[in-house]
């Protein structure tokens, strides 16, 4: 299993991670190694096996429909990098 630099670039973009051009090679090697490790799975016959998404064989518990939260905007926005008039600011979104 070997990933090309282009594939690494594509994955990094999908994950929104900037990667320096000079680091691409290293990531390509590491990711290829990891996928190589993962490929051990290929040899196992898993026909008819139900995928296990979760260790608990339980079902979703439901919440009563009641507003329980109070306004904590200022408290939460104390951590925000850029805020104005109660809004989080991001570079202009073009649709």
């Amino acid at each position, binding site marked *: 299993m070997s990933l090309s630099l282009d594939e690494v670039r594509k994955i990094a973009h999908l*994950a929104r*991670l900037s990667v320096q051009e000079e*680091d691409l090679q290293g990531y390509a090697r590491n*990711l290829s190694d990891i996928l190589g*490790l993962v490929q051990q*799975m290929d040899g196992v016959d898993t026909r008819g096996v139900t995928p*296990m998404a979760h*260790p608990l064989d339980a079902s979703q518990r439901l919440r009563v429909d009641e507003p329980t939260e109070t306004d904590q905007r200022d408290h939460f926005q104390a951590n925000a990098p850029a805020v104005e008039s109660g809004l989080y600011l*991001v570079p202009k979104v073009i649709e």
Partner: protein
Amino acid sequence: MHEKSIAELAAALKEGEVSSVELTAHYLRRIETLDDALNAYVTVTGEQAMEAARAADEARAQGHAGPLTGVPIAHKDIFCTEGTRTSCGSKMLDNFIAPYDATVVARFKAAGCPILGKTNMDEFAMGSSNETSYYGPVKNPWDTERVPGGSSGGSAAVVAGRLAPGATGTDTGGSIRQPAALNGVTGIKPTYGRVSRWGMIAFASSLDQGGPMARTAEDCALMLNVMAGFDHRDSTSIQRPDEDFTRHMNTPVKGLRIGLPKQFFGEGMDAGVARVVDEAIAHYKGLGAEFVEVDLPHSDLSVAAYYVVAPAECSSNLARFDGVRYGYRCEDPKDLLDLYMRSRGEGFGPEVKRRIMVGTYALSAGYFDAYYLKAQKIRRLIAEDFASAFKEVDVILGPTAPSTAFRLGEKTNDPVTMYLSDIYTIAVNLAGLPALSLPAGFSDGLPVGLQLIGNYFDEARLLGVAHQYQVGTEWCGMAPGGFV
């Protein structure tokens, strides 16, 4: 004071031999003088700790003390602590002041335990050596040239170095047990769903589980009594009546059926580790336990399956760190894409980025079935292996890690070799079972951990089995030179 276990400290507080203020101040002094050598704390919260200690003494004076009131502890920096930086070992959250308490933190506060500080960890709990932390690696108190293991390396080191009587940790693939083993302390990963994940920053949601780390199994049981319990804010929290995890402390192991998985005793384990495990088996035999070989045929695949499931979940869990609402934001983003790419590219370290990319790849169109779905199926096979084994035995025993603490920098350039440090611990997370690591001896002066795996919800028995070993051996009482 610091040579005492939590159980002993609780007794001393109860008897009035010491106050929480004295005890807390003592630990804070030790941290101040000794932690420079370890780098185990990311944040020390001395003032708040002293305030909480005074409140604990006050509560005791008024007759409102619980079992652990006044015993100071440390939290892994993955648990949100209101008003205190919660960094998760990452530059991404270096400036993040948590606006709320994790359930685990709230429970310890309610129990009257002052918080000494937040412990260092691998970035977002991704690592087995603590070297991926933004704050630099933690050093192993037994040999400061060596790693403490990870990701709860800071928590393990503060317990081993007597810089806290106990600390919380989290375990996604061995992150409590492996550092416990490498530092000569006891740590338990409970059954998935026992400890609330609310406020515990997610790495891989279906695998993450919080648990206690302390010197002894009894201490872990006392801490688990505080930590565990149903939480309506966590959909995966188990709704069961509260139980006393210390109830099997004095249950003899005579007649206990212990399984030895043949896959855990093949090649790959260091000779020194093998010797210690053999001695522990002999000790249990002496106590009247019976040993049976068990087969976990798919356990060899656990690392492979894990490195699909965990990165897949992490790639999604860590998408929220985007520089918009909190956390690191890059300088002068030229547009929205640039904001995302650079905030995340600069805010995350290389190991986190590797795992996000592996997970992104495994979930992407065209690869989902071959990777993610395949891994989920193998996960099922692994869980079924354990289910069959637990029809034959009460407890499964083996090594926690294949070697003792390795040297700093030894494996940093080779992620796959690093991942294999967790070869004995990962299967347990995939199945959701409880397991603990307890100190069982030394190899070349470095601690060796013994792993006990239990059936679902069988923590009390696991802790009892470990305790029976600890009352007859000296290992958990030993402190590293320089931290005596």
